[in-house]
């Protein structure tokens, strides 16, 4: 991580920017292995927000006091946590309680000016140039936390793109009221539940401007070289803005109108399987993926919109998932379960 010339590290600056936005009594969720996030939470709680508390999502660690959170399975996390929750408890928090968390701090491979997040892949999903860690809890937290921060340690055109290659966390989707129109009522963000960015050169609070967002420069060194026009909101327009030098501060991304979110996720193109870049998949993984893909195309795609719009639990899918061995992976075969080993449990 680069160290700024005036003596503080990028991570330190990001931690301070995030820390300033946290309020006493708020509940937050950060990822695992999230050192900057924890470095923001710890001093805020010690100094200005004694009732701030946070959990490291996949690890289930509450208020880890050390300035580092190790990967989820590391038992050393327990020593520095005030409480530990198991995974089902975390899923319960994340998925089913609207606004349980006041804010989430999320990372991204890419983000765009509507605050959409991509952590899945760079390039075509079927043949990606780079695969990320996947969606994990981001898709739920974007809609269910009151606000969320997108923390970026890179600030260039590769990270801030006109349109993310894969939406795994919905910000304002296509901009304007699109997010509200396209989501079921219970998943709509509350007023003010907006995405904000924390990056190497911009403030966590992006300013609203019509249907799109841009960044406000706050880095002391970068601000000095930032044209005035780029540190304020920029109107949405179909014209491509003039190129800005790499690592200049502000970034209303070039305006190409993103494709419809539902169209891109539920369109037929996603289900027709071109050959995938399978450099890290075993043959049985590909077989499982193809079986699931066919099942999804046949049973899930036809009802996907309807179950969201009617807020309906898709009971008819439960038996189908069960017959495919996708449920209760821990159950041994002697009791009629899949008896999946660790690899299969991860893959499923």
């Amino acid at each position: 991580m680069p160290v700024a010339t005036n003596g503080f590290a990028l991570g330190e600056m990001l931690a301070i920017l995030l820390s300033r936005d946290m309020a006493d009594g708020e509940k937050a969720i950060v990822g695992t292995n999230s050192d900057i996030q924890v470095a923001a939470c710890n001093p805020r709680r010690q100094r200005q927000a004694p009732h701030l508390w946070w959990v490291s999502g996949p690890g289930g660690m509450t208020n880890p006091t050390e300035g580092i959170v190790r990967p989820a399975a590391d038992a050393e996390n327990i020593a520095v946590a005030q409480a530990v929750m198991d995974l089902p408890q975390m899923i319960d928090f994340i998925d089913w309680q609207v606004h349980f968390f006041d804010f989430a701090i999320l990372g991204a491979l890419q983000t765009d000016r509507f605050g959409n997040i991509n952590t899945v892949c760079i390039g075509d999903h079927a043949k990606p140039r780079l695969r990320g860690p996947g969606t994990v809890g981001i898709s739920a937290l974007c809609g269910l936390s009151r606000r969320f921060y997108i923390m970026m340690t890179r600030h260039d055109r590769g990270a801030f793109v006109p349109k993310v290659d894969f939406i795994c966390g919905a910000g304002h989707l296509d901009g304007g009221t699109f997010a509200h129109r396209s989501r079921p009522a219970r998943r709509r963000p509350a007023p003010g539940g907006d995405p904000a960015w924390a990056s190497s050169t911009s403030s966590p609070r992006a300013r609203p401007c019509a249907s799109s967002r841009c960044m406000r420069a706050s880095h002391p060194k970068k601000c000095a070289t930032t044209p005035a026009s780029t540190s304020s909101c920029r109107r949405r327009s179909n014209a491509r803005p003039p190129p800005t030098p790499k690592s200049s501060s502000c970034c209303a991304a070039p305006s190409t109108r993103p494709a419809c979110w539902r169209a891109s996720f539920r369109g037929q193109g996603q289900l027709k399987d071109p050959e995938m870049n399978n450099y890290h998949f075993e043959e049985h993984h590909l077989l499982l993926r193809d079986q699931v893909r066919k099942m999804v195309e046949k049973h899930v795609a036809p009802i996907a919109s309807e179950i969201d719009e009617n807020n309906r639990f898709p009971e008819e899918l439960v038996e189908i998932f069960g017959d495919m061995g996708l449920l209760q992976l821990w159950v041994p075969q002697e009791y009629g379960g899949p008896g999946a080993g660790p690899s299969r449990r991860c893959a499923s």
Partner: protein
Amino acid sequence: MCIVKEEIAKVSESAALLAANNSFGLILPILNFGTEEQKRHYLGLAAKGRTLTSVAITEAGTGSDVSSMKTRAGEGR
């Protein structure tokens, strides 16, 4: 939870959550602490999708925060 959930979530996040929340965890109390009879009865049903699993633990003032619960279980006298 990678391949399967991602494939389902491409089409429906709701359906992916169904698979995710019923694919691990919630059957563990029976698996670890149930009687042999309970295991024979429930585990197969849950794995085949003939019944759904859920955690029904709550108490006034604690919600699903099990660490704050005051109720304690013990052997009957």
